[in-house]
């Protein structure tokens, strides 16, 4: 077991290293000069050649590429991710400011998606092939495939402007959370509805459920006690994955609702060619993803010995 764990840990570290190299390479290849972005932002006008040279030196972009990468890596290993070039604050500070907001939004959206998706899936499964089934599936899918800014504007217009039930924009209170969370929850809710439906259907067809039904246990009791419990395991996994995706932040929702989160930070950093910030963000997101995978893998390996053997081949 420990050998397996050690192997997986090493592969995580290697993957992270690969991620940093990939990010650095993409940054190098991207068109545009970070020094020019920084200066144009501060000055409000195009910089002179001397100002550019001075800023390149200040940012360190005039050094050879391997030196830049290794210097950054050495700092990262120590926990020092440098300063954001455009924002002038430490990379950690720029991210720490936004992470809680994104986490709150992601968790709320995930929770809402569970509340919205699972009942729909269950209802569709129990009334399989009926009108309710088809309409609910199609409706869920349709709602989830509308462009998110469209859903956002629609919800704002209805609930914030017309009904004045919630604020239009901003962050900081539960009321501000409602509309963005609902907008983000629609996609995962539809996925959850589909999975719940198929898993419940499957479980309902299992022998032990049919046995229970044959033994005369009441219909709804059969469903709720046996089927749902088993169906929930894969469904919860999907929900967990959705949280992972949501934690990456949704750019459009963040911008439309003026909810400054990680999605907006990441895209702004890329557009600003703010490489320390981009590296910091990507490293953070990749670490979260890989560590979560690692923990899950290890717990399954603990539970199912065959996995460890299979893992040796991979």
């Amino acid at each position, binding site marked *: 077991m420990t050998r397996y764990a050690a192997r997986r840990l090493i592969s995580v570290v290697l993957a992270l290293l690969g991620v940093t190299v990939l990010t650095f390479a993409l940054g190098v290849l991207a068109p545009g000069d970070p020094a020019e972005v920084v200066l144009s932002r501060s000055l409000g006008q195009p910089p002179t050649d001397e100002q550019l040279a001075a800023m390149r030196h200040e940012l360190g972009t005039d050094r050879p590429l391997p030196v830049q990468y290794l210097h950054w890596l050495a700092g990262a290993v120590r926990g020092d991710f440098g300063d954001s070039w455009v924002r002038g604050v430490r990379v950690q500070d720029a991210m720490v400011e936004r992470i809680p907001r994104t986490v709150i939004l992601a968790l709320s959206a995930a929770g809402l998606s569970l509340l919205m998706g699972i009942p729909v899936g269950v209802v569709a499964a129990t009334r399989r092939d009926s009108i309710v089934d088809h309409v609910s599936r199609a409706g869920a899918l349709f709602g989830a495939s509308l462009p998110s800014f469209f859903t956002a504007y629609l919800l704002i217009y209805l609930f914030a402007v017309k009904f004045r039930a919630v604020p239009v924009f901003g962050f900081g209170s539960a009321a501000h959370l409602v509309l963005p969370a609902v907008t983000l929850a629609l996609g995962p809710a539809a996925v959850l509805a589909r999975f719940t439906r198929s898993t419940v259907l499957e479980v309902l067809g299992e022998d032990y459920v049919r046995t229970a039904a044959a033994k005369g246990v009441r219909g709804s009791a059969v469903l709720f006690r046996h089927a749902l419990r088993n169906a929930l395991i894969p469904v919860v996994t999907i929900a967990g994955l959705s949280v992972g995706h949501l934690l990456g932040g949704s750019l459009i929702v963040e911008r*439309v609702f003026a909810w400054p989160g990680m999605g907006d930070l990441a895209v702004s950093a890329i557009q*600003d060619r703010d490489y320390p910030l981009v590296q910091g963000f990507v490293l953070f997101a990749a670490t979260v993803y890989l560590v979560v995978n690692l923990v899950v893998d290890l717990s399954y390996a603990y539970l199912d010995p065959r996995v460890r053997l299979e893992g040796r081949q991979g």
Partner: protein
Amino acid sequence: MRVRVAAVALVLLAAACGGNGSESPSQAEPTPLPDDQQTLTVATPGDVFITRDRIFLGIWPDNANICETLVGLGYDFQPTPLLATRWTYTGNNTFRFELRRDVRFHNGAPFNAEAVRHSVERVVEKRQTLNTFVGAGSAKVVDEFTVDITTTQTNLRLAEQISHPFFSIVAAGTDPAERPVCTGPFQFGSYSPNDRLVVNRNDAYWGSEKPRLRQITFRFISDQNTRRLALESGEVDLMWFLAPQQSADVRGRPGLEVAPAPPGAVVDISLNLHGAAPHTLLQDIDVRRALGMSFDARALAEQQWQGNAQVVAGVSPPAVLGPAASLVGSRTPNLAEAERLLEARGWRKGSDGIREKEGRKLSLVGVSQFDFEPESLQFLQAQVRRAGIDLRLERAPDAAAYSAKINSGAWDVDVNYFNQNDANPVRIPAQFWYSKVANARTRLTNPGPKFDGLVDEALSAPDLTTAQRKAAEAINVLVNEEWAAIALTNFPQIYAHRTNVAGFRPHPSVNHQPWTGVFRTGRP
């Protein structure tokens, strides 16, 4: 019944008198709300204060009226006395400023020559001197209320340039990045990044027009539609940058008003005159003429932008040129002439409507900033297509890609707009076309020695009137003789606010917007 009619009539009369935000307070004005309700919430297009140095918090580019400069910028783009009462050029690259007396900073410290010296040193230290040639030690205290500023090179436009908010006078011993302490009608309250900036009334303000609002909250909302929705829901009272295509719709809503600003930036088309192959088509002046004549700026202003813009003759807002603005000749579109010119140069229309000559299509690469509204670009594209010119638009996805594109020279036409942020009449031509401001762009766009000579004269003119004249002549050469740039309209800068916001007068320069005359009334 009669009482009710009279009441309605009174309300209508009050609405008619005070409804237009650009009225001066001396006329019959609507009843202001009591003081504790004199607050205003403004939606701005995003938090612009997050920069590397953060030294312009509340100062620039969004001016929260916390700080002031020595020289102010009037609504007519002319320099006005603000913290300085007089200024004269005394020779030897030196300007002498006589300062206003009895002015105090928000922390009670006196405003004097030493404060000016300190502020100028700070700007120099942060390298934000903006082509003024102000250097370390440039500012010298002559006496308590007199300052000399000596530039490192001859710069006779210093007084006009110093109206830029970069040269705000801040109190010594304070850190503007944390908490700006200045002399303005409002003082710094609080700042929450990506959320809001709050300023409070300065009751000890020196000016004759006292601030009427007790507090202004600037909320940062980057999405234009959301800003508008926030205005409609009442969460904000005033918003910046309404899309011109939405102005008619907003005007039609009860309780809302639209306030377009006077021309402050000009949408123009810069041409690449010195490109390498294949971007050499515009080196033929007749092709440039034809291109210029096939744009219909009036249609852009009236159809596409719903009348929220006006045709402008040159690349600077006419007001900054003063009486010399008429020296910039205006043009009317002439599609027939454009086509005649192209035919004469051997460009024949192909089967797809695009002209060709010796097997080469008349295809121009057009670039623009990523936030330039895409539909208007397509409007312009369709216009020149009528003359048989194929304008291929390459919108850059972000600012960095745009700069890289411009610097690479791989373009023919750049659709852009430039802000006039101070009273210097030759600011825009000097920054974007003048060869002595050497950068990748000017190397490609410079229209030649006659233009350069006129810019030289404008920069070294001893008085503003001559400078304006020379600037206008330079722009005339740029636009009408060399056809190096094509001016279209002013950039439509539109504010929208609730009807109970009175006294708001949009300033043509966004970063000089005053908030002193604004107040809230009892109207819904």
